[in-house]
């Protein structure tokens, strides 16, 4: 008996340790068909080889535990399909998880105040959901470095056996993380706004979506009867995808995006002179007439004639101007339109417009301007996110804006992950199904319907605001505008 116990002890230990990690699987959860052979090799090629690839990112001296299925698998030479229970092992590897949510973000990119506040907030939220932040959350600072992120991912998978990953905040990290998530069959929530997730059961994109916001703006423009809009944006802009989405909508004729250097006003001058036909060759005779007219007038009045001050009246053949830039440059651009004789041209914009400084001084050309955002009123934010408003409920101090954005998005991702974890125990690879079903707590903010659309894109609302009278006003019925159609995976 003693000998049997001695022999079986390691197995017993392995079972004891991995019992909470192993989730029950039902037949539908099983992505591993029983039996070996072709399935084994298929599974290895589609999934298991990537575990081995990820293992290369483990540090030298990494301690393997023979009892753990993931470590056992790594010890297999080749696909191990010649062994009878290899497929079972595969099953256990992709199922094993520790009820831990990994949050991998480039914290060093944000001010220390912001990420400390974010971590604290998320911990509070997780605790409020009946989970233990110390046990159920793991935080990693990727530093925005791919190598670091992969090394960290390896640790998360082989050491901590995480259940889900939330990350991919940067355009560099997002595709890499999503590929790992897909290949390793680990539910992965990508946060980068511009990322187009691959069609994968395991990868989800959560957060504001430039395409969606652009669609909202286009819908608004259509409603206003705009047929043609000009788009201008600064060089090295991070909102190129917004511009692309506007151009790609094909519902309204677009000019541009016309690109300028915000540090060099001359580049803006060139754009406006072109856009408003101020230097067109066809208008040279008109300019000559104007010069002569003012020359005569100056002579009559006995004053010096300065041709530099003369400009033809603008020819405005667009219905609106979209400025894909932050509020600071928007103020400059809106004000400088007067210089070209352009007044009351409708202006449209993006979330980066939203700051108290957009409206704290009256600007005629901004009156009635509209911009789209992914945050509604700051007064009643979901997840108990708090922010002190400035002047009205739609504005907060700029220094708070990034914190609120991050808390909102990360908390929403964590909420989805927590929902997926809290249900009946399921193998890790099957958690994606839970994610597909998760509904937002705060329907007032996020609207009705699941957090994710069938294509695993975020079902994030858009909000339109108009500018005027020193305030921002939410346009009625503007939230959750047209959702692009998506096919389920």
């Amino acid at each position: 008996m003693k000998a049997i116990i001695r022999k079986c002890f390691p197995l017993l230990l392995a079972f004891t340790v991995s019992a909470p990690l192993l989730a029950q699987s039902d037949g539908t959860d099983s992505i591993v068909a029983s039996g070996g052979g072709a399935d084994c090799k298929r599974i290895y090629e589609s999934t298991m080889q990537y575990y081995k690839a990820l293992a290369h990112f483990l540090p030298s001296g990494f301690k393997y535990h023979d009892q753990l299925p993931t470590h056992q698998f790594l010890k297999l030479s080749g696909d191990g399909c010649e062994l009878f229970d290899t497929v079972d092992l595969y099953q256990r590897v992709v199922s094993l998880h520790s009820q831990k949510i990994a949050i991998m973000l480039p914290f060093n990119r944000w001010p220390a105040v912001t990420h400390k506040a974010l971590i604290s907030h998320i911990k509070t939220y997780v605790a409020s959901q009946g989970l233990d932040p110390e046990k159920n959350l793991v935080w990693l600072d990727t530093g925005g470095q791919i190598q670091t992120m992969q090394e960290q991912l390896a640790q998360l998978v082989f050491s901590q056996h995480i259940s889900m990953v939330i990350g991919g905040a940067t355009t560099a990290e997002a595709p890499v993380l999503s590929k790992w998530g897909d290949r390793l069959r680990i539910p992965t929530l990508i946060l980068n706004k511009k990322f187009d997730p691959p069609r994968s059961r395991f990868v989800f994109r959560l957060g504001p979506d430039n395409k969606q916001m652009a669609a909202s703006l286009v819908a608004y423009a259509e409603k206003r009867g705009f047929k043609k809009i000009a788009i201008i944006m600064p060089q090295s802009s991070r909102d190129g995808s917004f511009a692309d989405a506007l151009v790609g909508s094909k519902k309204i004729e677009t000019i541009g995006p016309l690109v300028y250097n915000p540090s060099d006003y001359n580049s803006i001058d060139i754009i406006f002179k072109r856009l408003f036909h101020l230097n067109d060759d066809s208008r040279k005779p008109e300019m000559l007439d104007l010069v002569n007219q003012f020359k005569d007038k100056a002579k009559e009045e006995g004053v010096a004639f300065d041709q530099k001050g003369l400009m033809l009246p603008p020819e405005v053949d667009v219905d609106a101007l979209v400025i894909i830039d932050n509020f600071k440059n928007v103020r400059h651009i809106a004000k400088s339109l007067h210089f070209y004789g352009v007044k009351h041209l409708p202006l449209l914009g993006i979330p980066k417009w939203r700051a108290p400084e957009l409206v704290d001084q009256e600007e005629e050309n901004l009156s009635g301007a509209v911009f789209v955002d992914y945050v509604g009123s700051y007064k009643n934010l979901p997840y108990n996110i708090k922010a002190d408003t400035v002047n009205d409920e739609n504005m907060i101090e700029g220094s708070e804006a990034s914190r609120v954005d991050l808390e909102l998005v990360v908390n929403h991702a964590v909420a989805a992950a927590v929902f997926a974890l809290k249900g009946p125990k399921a193998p890790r690879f099957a958690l994606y199904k839970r994610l597909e079903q998760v509904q937002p707590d705060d329907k007032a903010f996020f609207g009705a319907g699941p957090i994710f659309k069938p294509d695993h894109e975020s079902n994030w609302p858009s909000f339109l605001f108009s500018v005027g009278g020193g305030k921002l006003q939410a346009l009625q019925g503007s939230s959750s505008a047209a959702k692009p159609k998506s096919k389920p995976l």
Partner: protein
Amino acid sequence: MLSNLLQTLKSILTERQFLPKRWTLIPTLIGSILAITLVSGISLIVWLSSAGLFEIDESKLDVIVNYEHSDNSLVFDKSGKQIGEFFSDYHVYYPYAKIPPLMVHAVLSIEDRSFFEHHGLDYKAIARAGVSLLKTGHFRQGASTITQQVVRNFLLTPERKLSRKIKEAAFALQLERRVSKERILEIYLNALFLGQGSYGVAAAAQRHFGKTLDDLGPHEIALIAGLFQSPTRFNPHKNPKAAKKRQLLVLKAMVANGFLEPSDYKKWSTEPLVYQVPASMNQSIAPFFLDAIQEQTDKILQGKFKGKGLRITTTLDLSLQQELNTILQGSKSIYSTAANALINVKNPKESMIEAASLVMNHRSGEILAMVGGRDFSRSQFNRALKAKRAPGSCFKPLVYSQALMGGMNWSDMTYITPIVIQNYRPQNYSNEFMSESTYFNAFYRSINTPVVELGSRIGIKKIIETARKMGVKTELKPQAGTLLGGSEMTMTDLAQIYGTIGNDGNKPDPFMIEKITTRNGVVVYEHKAAPVTRVLPPAVAYMMTMAMQAVFRFGTAAKYPEFASYAAGKTGTTNEAKDNWFCGFTHDITSIVWVGTDDNYAFSGAVAGASMALPIWARMMERIKDRYPPLPFEMPEGVVKKRIHPLFGFEDANGVEMPLLEGRGPTRHESTLTIVRDTGSFRDALDW
């Protein structure tokens, strides 16, 4: 003739045709003599009558009897030091008692040695002249007394006619009865022309020798004494040999009359005569100022002051003026640099560069010093008073003052973009579009577009009206360019603007003449201070002052931060640097400097108000500070100081100290603009 007559009479009588022989000879002789005498007497009377002797009107002598000597009008600085004199003819009055005795003796020796003995005529001299007339038929020998010369000078023509001589004699006799000898001599020695535009011996001493009468040596006295006979013929500057000959004659006469020892004659006859025309005080100390004084005096007294011997006390501070002269003349390196920077000028010369300056006590209105140009002898045009030049950015304080009165706060922020107003599209000096600034920062960095914006909101007419209230006299053009100082004005106009701000918002009343009196001390004019006119509230004046102190701390005059504690100022540079200004003030003193060219030549980019006018101003201010130690600018009630972010206008402990009206100013302690400035982006945490 007489002998013939007698002969004829004798022959008639001896022919016994008319009278008995013996007993009628004597009565006949007597009768004849009487008849001849009668006829002669009648003829003489007739002749004298025809000569006008009986038409002598004694009242004509009144002009001599009541003679008031002419005198140069003298100009003094505020502490009583003479700085100049005005005259049409050059007079220097010396009362008889003060005339050096040797001068009197020399004149008497050569002109009228028995002056104190006769009663107007020297009969011996007349007799000598009569004999000469009979012998030669001409008046060759002079017999005129000093008294006669005075009469001739005042009443008669100088022609040599017997009739004129008789009249002269008659007047001379009458004059002696009415006026004392000393007085006649005094008039003689002060009123007669002695060459080189001088009247009187003291004036002659100045004009011939550059000395006062008291400083003349006997050889020089002799020369002057010799001039009375013919100041033209004996003018030493034109006829030195004749003058020398005459001088020797005078010296001999002095010896002959016992006024000079024979041994002295040798010494003084060989003593060199050094003729000097002294540098005109008018041209050397404050020529432009004096020019202006003359003009003003003319205006006040309506031209009635030349030769009246007025005493004009001005506001000039002579010592300060001299220091200012030295500084402006000593700034050659600046002028040289400027000349090298001239563009589109063939053969640019340093002499083409001009400068002007004005210093005024804005509390009292006294003009303390003035330089109207670099070289009065080259150009008398007073650029400090009369040149109308564009002030450039020096005009901005006027616009900002008006904006502050209208409710603007220094902490208010503006976006600096191109703007247009009435087809006027101003450029910024350093192309600062797409940046942000508080108005405070925009002011001390002299950014253009914010001023134009403010000005267009206020209205150009209102700004021009405020300028008028401050005392600007030049008509400003009601166009947008005026807001950036494109409308020409004088330096005094600018002094009014800066003086108003420096004077706590009260318009200064500049003046140059304190008082004008006659030589006897009778006041004919005295400056009366105008009633105080408030143009700006004290709080606005103070806030404007602090902003101009910031020009030294952080702005276009930051090379001279040491002035910030007690001075305020503004640079001004017009298009192509044709005009380069610095206008500044302390608690009491406003001073302005301009550098440019009379022909409005342009300079290359190296030249600006900060590099041309400011260094000169700084040197001036060092001197002004020594003489008029500055008090601190007092903060009035209702103004507070806060530290504000200079670009974004929020309260910031590391910001720039700005003056604000109590209860006004920013309410926020941060700005999203800081995030954009520091990181280059906003709300892009998920866009990386």
